[in-house]
């Protein structure tokens, strides 16, 4: 049963990657990456129950923390370098 | 640094420091699970470091009084019901083949005075699917709504009233 749940989360991660590849703006990509990151934390928590190893919960917390800091850092970078951000979104 | 000039004086009570330290230390002990003198002293060290850093970034300037914190669960319970209602609506919109969205921007001035009140208001609005706070400027909030239905719900100002209740004596 946990397998079905983790497959559903994996499916959503694939959809998020599809959105990240499609763009069209840089913010769509960051949104997709954020979605991917929170789903990683969720997936790790589910895996902890799937293979019955509670240590994975600590990893889930670490991923949740890193995701937030990472997204804020990326946004800060984009705001500091608007020209580079535009380059990245024109690349599509 | 800009904020420092705006409100130069604020006092940190011993209780605030002690309470935060206790919360941090409990978290450390729960997560480490090993109770050796070396690890516990490392824990005390990193908790003190976090306290110092928090104090430097102005964490305690925006601290809520304890009676507001105790009233948070009531707000959370109400938010949970709102989240369930609006997520079912948003899910129905996403799954319907014609995508019946009518995005609407709602702008309103809030009566919240404190910064923490504004943060709680903005985050509560964002938390329920269908409404996202996209700009906060002084006491003006700009909210993006997915449908006119959710926009109307926002206009009833129910969230604001609930949050104001946190601060009443």
């Amino acid at each position, binding site marked *: 049963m946990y397998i079905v749940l983790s497959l559903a989360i994996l499916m*959503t991660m694939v959809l998020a990657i599809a959105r990240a590849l499609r763009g069209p*703006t840089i913010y769509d990509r960051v949104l997709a990456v954020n979605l991917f990151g*929170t789903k990683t934390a969720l997936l790790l928590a589910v895996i902890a129950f799937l293979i019955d190893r509670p240590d994975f919960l600590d990893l889930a917390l670490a991923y949740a923390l890193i995701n937030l800091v990472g997204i804020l850092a990326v*946004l800060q970078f984009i705001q500091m370098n*608007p020209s580079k951000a535009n380059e990245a979104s024109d690349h599509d | 640094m800009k904020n420092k000039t705006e409100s130069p004086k604020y006092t940190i009570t011993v209780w605030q420091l002690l309470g935060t330290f206790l919360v941090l230390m409990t978290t450390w002990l729960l997560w480490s699970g090993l109770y050796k003198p070396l690890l516990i002293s490392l824990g005390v060290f990193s908790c003190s470091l976090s306290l110092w850093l928090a104090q430097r970034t102005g964490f305690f300037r925006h601290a809520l009084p304890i009676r507001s914190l105790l009233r948070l669960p009531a707000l959370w319970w109400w938010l949970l019901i709102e989240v369930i209602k609006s997520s079912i609506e948003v899910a129905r919109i996403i799954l319907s083949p014609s995508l019946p969205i009518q995005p609407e*921007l709602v702008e309103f001035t809030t009566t919240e005075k404190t910064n923490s009140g504004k943060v709680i208001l903005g985050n509560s609005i964002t938390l329920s699917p269908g409404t996202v706070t996209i700009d906060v400027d002084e006491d003006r909030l700009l909210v993006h709504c997915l449908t006119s239905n959710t926009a109307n719900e926002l206009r009833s100002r129910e969230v604001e009233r609930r949050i104001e209740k946190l601060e009443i004596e």
Partner: protein
Amino acid sequence: MINTVMDVLSWILLCSGGVFVLIGGIGALRLPNFYTRLHAASLTETMATILIFVGMILQAGFSLEALKLAVIMLFLLLTAPTASYALANAALQSGMRPKAESAKVESPNAQTGNSES
């Protein structure tokens, strides 16, 4: 008896959580522009997170794991709106105007003339 009820309840929560995760992913792909996609993302970030974590807490029972799960859930729920706000505000500041009906000004002393689609 009570155990079976808890078990069934938690499985219902976990299943609907999975469904909501998928709907959010589909929404992120289907909705037409950035600001509407934010709503789909917040659907998985709040509703699905609550459902899946509460389901797992019921499975874990009264234990250290349940406490850890509750802390992770609280952290995710407190930070998700902050991240969405930072993202939406960054997009707004970069000059990306949401396609929407013009702003309705709620209070007379608010500034007018913001954001015409």
